[in-house]
């Protein structure tokens, strides 16, 4: 199976990181609201997509790119995922939190080629709860990250994958 490609062009990533380091905090969906909601009637807009965060490997790097900060472990996050996923192509993952003022939820699969799987923006009035289905290349820790009141919190769970979700 050919899940893991050669490392992406590290030099390019570094360059991008350098160039964007300053702007990334704003690019992440920070509580500042610098991002989106500008035009409520607009359709989904690809320019909002945090491209660099989706290219990262590793939890710390991904969170730095996405939010510009690190997460602390919290027991106020519920991460619901199977102990064993027979089919890595479709792994149901749900995240919910009882933290107040949640503004974003993201889900990271640490052993995937790129760590960030999905990120969700939770505006005021939307419940801090999301369910989706993700691909997992192999057995991995899955990390749920919740942004609440401008801070990041996380919870994680190991999911064993019997057949990787890379189709190979």
């Amino acid at each position, binding site marked *: 199976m*050919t*899940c*893991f*490609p050669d490392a992406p062009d590290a030099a390019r990533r570094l360059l991008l990181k350098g160039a964007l380091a300053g702007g990334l905090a704003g690019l992440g969906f920070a509580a500042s609201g610098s991002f*989106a*909601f500008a035009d*409520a*009637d*607009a*359709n*989904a*807009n*690809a320019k*909002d*997509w*945090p491209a660099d965060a*989706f290219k990262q490997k590793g939890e710390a790097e991904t969170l730095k790119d996405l939010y510009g900060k690190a997460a602390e472990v919290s027991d106020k996050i519920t991460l619901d995922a199977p102990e064993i996923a027979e089919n890595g*192509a*479709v*792994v149901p993952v*749900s995240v919910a939190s009882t933290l107040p003022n949640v503004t974003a939820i993201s889900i990271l*699969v640490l052993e*995937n*080629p*790129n760590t*960030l*799987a*999905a*990120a*969700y*923006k*939770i*505006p005021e*009035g*939307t*419940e801090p*709860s*999301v*369910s*989706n*289905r*993700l*691909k*997992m*290349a192999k057995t991995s820790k899955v990390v749920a990250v919740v942004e609440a009141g401008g801070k990041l919190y996380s919870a994680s769970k190991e999911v064993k994958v019997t057949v990787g*979700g*890379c*189709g*190979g």
Partner: protein
Amino acid sequence: MASTIRVRAVASGDSTEVQSLIQHPMDSGFVKDSKGELIPAHHIEVVTFEHGGKVVFTAYWGPAVSKDPYVKFKFKGGKKGDDLKVSWVDNKGASDSMVAKIQ
């Protein structure tokens, strides 16, 4: 053409539960075809859900989201008969949108 989006939004009490399924290959860019050539990445990047002129939920998806992606969330407000607009755009610039009625 049939919409790529299927959405079911049900109002209950003061909140509305939304479940949506979108038809999309969500190719990761890491899988080879039968000739051994990489299938290029082709995945949805952004999905927005809008109710009453306000974006109530935005999803940012990478290639690790499963084929024909499913997502479920809940927002406060929303009454039976209200419009809920769903739209997506992928990394090749394709897009689709639809308006569903809250049940």
